[in-house]
């Protein structure tokens, strides 16, 4: 494959083995959310919540790994989630799903960019705009213009930085402070963290697994990786990536305890970034900052790449067939537009963190069964199946004033599942009846 071929931009030149596959998935999934949501779960649901958060990621990736093999077997000629949707859905359903995917993509990149903005605001004295401009320019060159090959070239460095930070910094602190003072401090200031018999945390874990799996099953970047990892190694790669990923939020939760053990806090979302103020060693500060930026930039690059691929391959190329050169030109243009949009939004909005954990949770939960139906079903599916996700989401949101947040996510999940189930049964009955009819006449 030539380097200037657009296929090269989408999937690179090689099929990945387990090692590189894991690195690629880790660099996609260790994101700003991982850094920002770990404190939230720990503080809201205690130590059980911290473990639950790790479990969520691990299980989500492992479950998707099981599906990945099926996806690859059934849709071996495809390259993106959009290609598969096009094969399996009617035009109406396809365009609906693509619009939902676009909204999710833009929101997901925006959340990452906000994370980077908060970090810049906390660390550097100069205005967020200039720092963000450099940061997004970097993401543009890697994910937007560089393509899959460039993303993988940096994924190795990114994973080395992640592991260096999550191994060295906790060890350094716990050797310096000792576990006992941390325990005493937490007992004094945040005793709720130490309560493990927390039924709400169990409830949270199950809901988080649902959201996590929903997030992975519609993740454009993970789908692209399904098609570039060697087929026979897909399941193992996703399973190990899930297990290895789970170690990172665990290490981060141990870091959070270092930050909060002697004091209270203002905002739980930016807690981890306050670690910079706690670290005395310049080397460790640099390592921590590099860790944060590299995780966020790799996640943004992967998302940007997947989103632009979706726009060019699954939207523009269908509306108006593009030549190779045009595809490249539009890639640069759209990556640039997305980066510029992020730059403006992040610079305008105050650097206040968003409530991340359950935002979009309803959409992700209601996407699971329709996506499973799309992947595992046999016939072209009508628009009702993808629409089940929006009906489920709306149902969940409608229940928001009556029941609590976690339950609405389950409501969304059940509504969309019910619609799919009803359609499935209706389809079977219809087939049986038509078979009987054709036999009789």
């Amino acid at each position, binding site marked *: 494959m030539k380097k200037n071929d657009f296929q090269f931009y989408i999937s690179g030149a090689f099929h990945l083995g387990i*090692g590189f596959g894991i690195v690629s998935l880790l660099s996609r999934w260790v994101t700003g959310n991982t850094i920002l949501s770990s404190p939230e779960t720990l503080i809201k649901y205690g130590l059980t919540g911290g473990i639950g958060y790790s479990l969520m990621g691990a299980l989500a990736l492992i479950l998707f790994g099981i599906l990945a093999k099926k996806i690859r077997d059934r849709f071996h000629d495809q390259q993106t989630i959009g290609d598969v949707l096009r094969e399996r859905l009617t035009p109406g359903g396809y365009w609906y799903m693509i619009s939902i995917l676009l909204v999710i993509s833009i929101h997901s990149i925006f959340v990452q960019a906000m994370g980077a903005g908060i970090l810049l605001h906390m660390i550097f004295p100069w205005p967020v705009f200039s720092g963000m401009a450099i940061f997004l320019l970097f993401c543009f060159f890697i994910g937007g213009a560089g393509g899959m090959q460039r993303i993988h070239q940096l994924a190795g460095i990114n994973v080395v930085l992640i592991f260096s930070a999550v191994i060295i910094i906790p060890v350094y602190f716990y050797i310096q402070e000792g*576990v006992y003072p941390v325990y005493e401090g937490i007992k004094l200031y945040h*005793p709720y963290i130490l309560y493990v018999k927390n039924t709400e945390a169990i409830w949270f874990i199950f809901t988080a697994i649902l959201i996590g799996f929903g997030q992975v099953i519609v993740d454009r970047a993970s789908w692209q990786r399904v098609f570039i990892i060697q087929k026979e190694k897909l399941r193992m790669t996703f399973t190990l990536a899930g297990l290895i990923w789970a*170690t*990172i939020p665990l290490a981060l939760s*141990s870091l959070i305890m270092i930050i909060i053990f002697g004091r209270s806090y203002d905002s739980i979302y930016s807690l981890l970034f306050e670690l910079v103020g706690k670290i005395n060693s310049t080397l460790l500060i640099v390592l921590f900052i590099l860790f944060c930026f590299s995780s966020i930039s790799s996640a943004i690059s992967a998302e940007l790449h997947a989103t632009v691929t979706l726009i060019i391959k699954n939207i523009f190329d269908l509306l108006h067939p593009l030549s190779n050169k045009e595809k490249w030109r539009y890639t640069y243009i759209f990556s640039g537009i997305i980066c510029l949009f992020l730059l403006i939004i992040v610079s305008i909005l105050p650097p206040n963190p968003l409530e991340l954990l359950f935002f979009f949770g309803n959409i992700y939960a209601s996407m699971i069964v329709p996506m499973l139906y799309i992947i595992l079903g046999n016939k072209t599916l009508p628009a009702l199946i993808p629409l089940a996700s929006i009906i489920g989401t709306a149902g969940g949101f409608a229940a928001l004033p009556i029941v609590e947040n976690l339950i609405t996510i389950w409501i969304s999940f059940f509504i969309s599942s019910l619609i799919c189930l009803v359609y499935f049964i209706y389809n079977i009955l219809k087939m049986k009846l038509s078979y009987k009819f054709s036999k009789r006449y």
Partner: protein
Amino acid sequence: MLPIESFSIYIMFCVLVPLLGSFTLLFLFVFEKRIDLLERQKREIALERELQTALYNQLNQEIQPHFFFNTLNSILALARLDRKTELIRSIETLSKLLKFKYRTINNFIPIEDELTYVNYYLEIQKTRFRDRLHYEIQLDKHVNKAIIIPFLIQTLVENAFKHAFERHIGNAFLKINVLKIESSIHVSVWNNSFESTETSHSDGGLGLENIKKRLELLFPEDETSVQLRNEGGGTAVLAIFPFVIKSEKLEGEKVQ
């Protein structure tokens, strides 16, 4: 509330698991290629062994006096009748057939090569059976370059002659279909002799078993199957294996 001991264990766990994760990743980077290499070598050895068995079966089955003398007699008859062009063609085809048989050492070949070989064989059989033999080969246009294990179609065709046409009198119809259905290749060899599948199993079972084994070894991760069944008033053997282009297979092995 969590006591200090449990909290210490929790912290120890949190601090140590990333180490475990990084070691796993490091291990994979260092040893993945070696493990792949060992697995591939193991598979190749097994595949070569099966190929040897297939070759042995082929030579054993085909260069049997029956086939050989009949062919020689047919060629002799052509010489006596002074049908020079047909004579030359027959000797040439026989020579190509034997050459292919002795020279095949690869574990997989393109379908077009396999079919060329089958055609040589059928041409020779045509000189023996003359107007009794009718055969047709149907081939999807995309499958020419796809790979197949050597002697797959050949073994099935030979079985048809051995178990059907040479045993029964009357017209001998043979149909070879090579189709691409979704991501698989379906090779079916049908003959018009209706036999109970059990009898065929006991006779041609070894050849089919060898094909089954070799397909499993060549495509360890994909679904393959070989089925013998009675259909359309005759007997058919259907072999299903994944559609893979030769260059892709070689590239895949290089990457591993």
